[in-house]
């Protein structure tokens, strides 16, 4: 079992010294770690891609969660795009609608692929199925998009956290958005170093984001946080491709995220005790979902 990289700096260095892409490093490591052939590893990832594609399609047809709190927004955005030119641009709004579609399917207990988690499952596929309209990737490049995302997620998961209960939403949607940004850069023809910059720029802007789901459900605000994560990823990718760099290196941003997560109050880490969950409306929705009468004091 051989791990090829433990942090982003090692990952980028390996890409540069071997003159290979980030997705290629991830594929090679996976083959070594799990003693699998390239075909096996590639095939398993392509199966994930199929699930993501179907989830986006299902969400764009319109779904409703069991609680009734979420569903239908992906359709609204797509309808808007047919009749208007979005101010934030077609690629951004398309990514937003597809991220929302994925998370609406998730909230409706449909089948999704966790990237890196279910609550943050929208950012990576949402951006992928949007930027593909402009970048026209091959199927292989789309599968590689997921390996590149996975490489950055791998570093975050091992050096920080991808759990909202352990590190807040910054660990989930923050990580997912950063992973997506890095993958967009590779698909758009950027360098591995630029992928790392895109990840750093994205995650910096997600630091401190708390996990405060209303009624404890992965719905409010999770669905819209994926929308913003996806848009953040597209913007950061553009910035990195333009040559903008992060003053704080990617690994240090990941470390900062970890330490912020450790010091974040428990009420704001997926316990439904603080933040939006504890607002008057949040509590009202919670009572409605569980059929409880709110006691007035």
């Amino acid at each position, binding site marked *: 079992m051989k791990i090829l990289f433990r942090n982003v700096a090692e990952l980028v260095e390996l890409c540069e010294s071997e003159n290979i892409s980030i997705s290629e490093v991830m594929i090679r490591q996976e083959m070594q770690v799990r003693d699998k052939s390239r075909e096996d590893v590639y095939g398993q990832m392509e199966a994930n891609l199929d699930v993501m594609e179907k989830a986006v399609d299902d969400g764009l047809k319109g779904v409703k969660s069991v609680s009734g709190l979420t569903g239908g927004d992906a359709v609204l955005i797509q309808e808007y795009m047919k009749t208007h030119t979005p101010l934030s641009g077609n690629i951004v709004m398309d990514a937003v609608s597809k991220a929302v579609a994925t998370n609406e399917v998730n909230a409706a207990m449909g089948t999704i692929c966790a990237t890196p988690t*279910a609550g943050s499952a929208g950012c990576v596929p949402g951006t992928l199925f949007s930027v593909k309209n402009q970048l026209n990737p091959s199927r292989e490049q789309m599968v590689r998009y997921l390996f590149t995302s996975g490489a950055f997620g791998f570093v975050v998961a091992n050096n920080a956290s991808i759990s909202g209960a*352990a590190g807040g939403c910054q660990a989930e949607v923050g990580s997912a958005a950063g992973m997506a940004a890095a993958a967009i850069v590779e698909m758009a023809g950027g360098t591995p170093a630029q992928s790392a910059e895109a990840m750093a720029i994205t995650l910096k802007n997600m630091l401190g984001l708390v996990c405060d789901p209303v009624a404890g459900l*992965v719905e409010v605000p999770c669905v819209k946080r994926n929308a913003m994560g996806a848009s953040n990823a597209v913007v950061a990718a553009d910035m990195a491709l333009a040559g903008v760099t992060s003053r704080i290196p990617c690994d240090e941003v990941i470390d900062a995220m970890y330490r912020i997560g450790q010091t974040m109050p428990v009420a704001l880490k997926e316990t439904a005790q603080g933040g939006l969950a504890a607002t008057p409306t949040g509590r009202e929705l919670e009572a409605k979902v569980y059929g409880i009468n709110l006691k007035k004091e």
Partner: protein
Amino acid sequence: MKYKSVFDIIGPIMIGPSSSHTAGAARIGRVARDLFGREPKWVKIHLYGSFAKTYKGHGTDVAIVGGILDFETYDQRISQSLTIAKEKGIKVQFYEEDAHTDHPNTARIRIGDDDGDLELVGISIGGGKAEIIEMNGFELRLSGNNPAILVMHNDRFGAIASVTQLLAKHEINIGHMEVSRKEVGKEALMVIEVDQTISEAQLKELEQFEHILQVARVVE
């Protein structure tokens, strides 16, 4: 490194809504089922931390029970698992615990029937990945860095040797091993961390040995 595979990050394919509270919880339930080795008649599930606070919304309850019914994380039947368990005559009880645990997503599962029972503590560490930290009162000190299996066996001559010989035959190297028992000649537990991946077929082969009660993979 807790996460070794890219598919821990991009994956699992699962039923929503939460990887830690639904998919990870289902995996803890499934390890309990694997170790128990058969469908139980009763199940008692104690939930701690974030699991205790939000299990209804995340479907943690249906997920754990789904795992105990041997469902995969992507099995649509998970959402119906409580009804399915009831139809099968399995008595399921939940307990919301206030006690503080080291990990926010912790579940203690007790399952059993007329012939025996089993208790384990699992934690869901994020992204659908789960770890078992305690089993029948035996604390498991797994590094989580290497594949690991648990072997429940009877404390008899040759039980340990039969397992290690089989691993040697398949060129699977043991990195760390612990053996513990409750009483001489009674139920005992081997915790084995290995350097290579153990296949499903090899696990089945282990289970065939005399004195081996159950085998389960706890870290992939």
